[in-house]
């Protein structure tokens, strides 16, 4: 089930919340209710991949109990290897199939298995729990709480990646089983903001992106630039929209899950970008990969830079086993290392220049992230930089959202111009000096905000019939 669906908004969410609060006096039953609801949510479209989730939970829970009893590194290694193996089998099977020989019988059977949605997110959440337990930074919870930590439906499909030690105390708190109007309002506001981002901005951008990246004919500079810009904002609004809804839904249940985005396109350096973009993944990589790599205390000063590159390579591979993700990760790793070196030199860069460079780098790197393979990304880059620099600027002016300002209103066609309008709105939204979580937190309980919220919610719901999947559900 997806957040941008009628079933979720009108049936599942009200039922899940209502029963949860009705069971306030029986917290254990309430917990198991949320686990059952989450499994139903998960299996709504792909029931055949449901078995993997309870199996993964049982294995990791049992292993964590063993780790508590005997803190053996072998158990931890077993847990990490098993989790990564499952992830590799399901997520990378297409790429691995090519490498290992897809003609083999065992491989044919394996490739018949469907991709379990959200596997990267719940696998990483569980690995972090095993590592924290091994390090003595986390303590075990009941099976119900652990199952809820993994399956909690707001984060299950596209994150954010949760930490066990942040969630369990919340599940145990009786105070959180009461309906808190302020949280209800804040959660509703975040859900509406998330839906607006997804349904009204990201989805209308999809045709512009497809035109640049999925077409097979000749690609002109304008279409390529437009596609690259559209994807920059589509990915952000799609993914951050999902996370806003996830945080909003958690608020409705009086639970807090981590904020995953803080206006990343306003970053003035690539380091800042990664502190604002997919924060839960960045933190995870920092805590469990970057700091775990050797050489951090070495006298060789190159290690921190090298480790940044390796960490970003892992980040790329987390998204998929393909050369595009490897190169994308490498680009970001080199950019992070360069940025760190620049800071070490204590050179100053004006914020405007820093922002422009960061935004340009991030946008250009999304091209390789989105393209289906390296030649496809080269095709887009080549089109973008044909007759550089003037023709792209002219093409951009002719095809971008700004073109809307120049042709008469009665010549607008909704299908063609909706994407451009969404692009214009998304670009202007970067300049808004706030972001969704802050907006929801600082919102006043006025009739006008309620009117605005109801109107936006209605418009979003009316667009559900043409809404699409969330992009990150397949990572």
């Amino acid at each position: 089930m997806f957040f941008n669906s009628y079933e979720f908004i009108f049936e599942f969410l009200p039922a899940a919340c209502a029963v949860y609060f009705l069971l306030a006096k029986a917290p254990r039953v309430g917990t198991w209710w949320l686990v059952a609801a989450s499994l139903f949510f998960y299996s709504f479209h792909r029931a055949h991949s449901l078995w993997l989730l309870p199996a993964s939970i049982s294995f990791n829970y049992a292993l964590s109990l063993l780790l508590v009893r005997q803190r053996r590194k072998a158990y931890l290694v077993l847990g990490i290897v098993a989790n990564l193996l499952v992830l590799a089998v399901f997520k990378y099977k297409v790429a691995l199939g090519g490498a290992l020989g897809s003609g083999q019988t065992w491989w044919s059977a394996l490739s018949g298995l469907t991709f379990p949605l959200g596997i990267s997110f719940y696998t990483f959440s569980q690995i972090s729990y095993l590592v924290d337990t091994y390090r003595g930074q986390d303590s075990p919870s009941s099976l119900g709480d652990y199952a809820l930590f993994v399956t909690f439906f707001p984060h299950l499909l596209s994150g954010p990646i949760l930490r066990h030690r942040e969630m369990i105390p919340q599940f145990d708190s009786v105070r959180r089983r009461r309906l808190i109007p302020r949280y209800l309002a804040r959660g509703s506001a975040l859900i509406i903001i998330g839906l607006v981002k997804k349904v009204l901005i990201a989805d209308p951008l999809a045709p512009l992106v497809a035109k640049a990246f999925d077409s097979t004919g000749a690609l002109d500079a304008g279409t390529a630039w437009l596609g690259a810009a559209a994807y920059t904002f589509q990915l952000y609004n799609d993914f951050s929209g999902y996370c806003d809804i996830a945080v909003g839904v958690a608020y409705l249940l009086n639970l807090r899950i981590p904020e995953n985005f803080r206006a990343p396109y306003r970053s003035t350096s690539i380091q800042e970008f990664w502190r604002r973009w997919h924060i839960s993944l960045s933190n995870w990589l920092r805590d469990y990969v970057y700091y775990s790599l050797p050489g951090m205390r070495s006298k060789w000063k190159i290690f921190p830079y090298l480790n940044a590159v390796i960490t970003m390579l892992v980040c790329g591979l987390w998204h998929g086993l393909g050369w595009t993700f490897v190169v994308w990760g490498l680009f970001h790793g080199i950019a992070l290392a360069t940025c760190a070196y620049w800071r070490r030199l204590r050179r100053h860069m004006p914020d405007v220049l820093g922002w422009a460079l960061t935004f340009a780098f991030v946008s250009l790197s999304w091209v390789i992230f989105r393209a289906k393979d390296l030649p496809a990304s080269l095709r887009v880059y080549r089109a973008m930089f044909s007759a550089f620099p003037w023709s792209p600027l002219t093409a951009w002016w002719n095809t971008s959202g700004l073109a809307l300002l120049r042709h008469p209103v009665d010549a607008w066609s909704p299908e063609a111009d909706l994407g451009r309008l969404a692009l214009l709105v998304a670009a202007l939204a970067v300049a808004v000096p706030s972001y969704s979580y802050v907006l929801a937190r600082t919102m006043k309980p006025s009739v006008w905000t309620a009117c605005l919220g109801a109107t936006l919610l209605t418009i979003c719901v009316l667009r559900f019939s043409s809404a699409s999947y969330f992009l990150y559900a397949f990572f």
Partner: protein
Amino acid sequence: MNRNKNRRGWIRWCWWLLALSCLLMGSTAAFTLVVDPYQIYHPMLGARPRFNRYLQRFAVPGLARTAKYEIALAGTSMLQNIPNSAVERLCGGKTVNLCMAGASIHEEALTLRLVLQHPGAKTAILTMDYNSLSGGAIEPVLGVDFVFPAYLYDDSILDKFPYFLSLDSILASYRALRGPLREGETLDSDWPWKFPDTMKFEASHAVQGIDPRSINRAFGMSNLNLESMTSAFAANMFPLLNGNKSVKIHFVFPPYSILVWHDYAQRGQIPVYFAFKKWLVEQTERFRNYDIVDYQDRADIITNMSLYADIYHFNERITEQLVRSACMGDAVLTRSNFDARTQSLLHLVQSTDPVQIVKEARGTP
């Protein structure tokens, strides 16, 4: 004190949000329900319904539920090109046409289920198209990208949100009331799915783009096997045939042109289709309320390419003959005449040459 005031403020905000959302969504749902552009709950109010050939799958369930009829034509495009008034003249009963271009057996069964629920329905004439048994996913038809609206075909109210709360439904309602007719749209409820004028019934037109030595190159149809065909038919149709008491059901095998049979011969598919046909005939003994009308061995029709717009689709005169035969009980395929009729068709295929047929068709207007 201040905390309580704050709490009350947020409670009021939540109620406002809920009330206004209900008001706005309720209004849009009410508008769609009142106009009901696809006639799911009642005949359309405020204007004549529009029939858009690109949106047949949206219009068909409403017609099947709320139109007044005794005879229903359903299935693929093979039976869509005939006015209802012609069927009424030939068969003597008010008629509705529920055909969908490229319908799968699943879509056909969903439609038949609605026909069987209709209190006035007495006769259902359904196409028996081999391609509808391919069992593949429901693909976009006629170049229009859509998701099959399964929610319009079932009886649940809980899955009707895409109809009541959708911008597409509001636009369809608005256009039905005020907008001009769009391409592919007609107000003619007597002949809603008439083939477009671009489909010319001429021999030279029928063989356009056809390579007689590899006919399937122009279509890219996949080969079928008997097991998947019978299981697709059984899974979709047997439950309906089992429960049906009152409606007489005729499955009609449409008269594809001889070039289609040459295509099947080139792909080694003729034995598969004959075996399926035989299996279907045997089922008539199991379910007494249906029969099979077969025009596929009609040499006078299938060898005359001037009756076709392409190698599959014939003109409305042939459709009329086919429907009349269904109503009169002519041309029924039975166990006793099965072998003779299939042999006659096979002989026809063996005694003609596709290269010659195409050559002649190209030379003859």
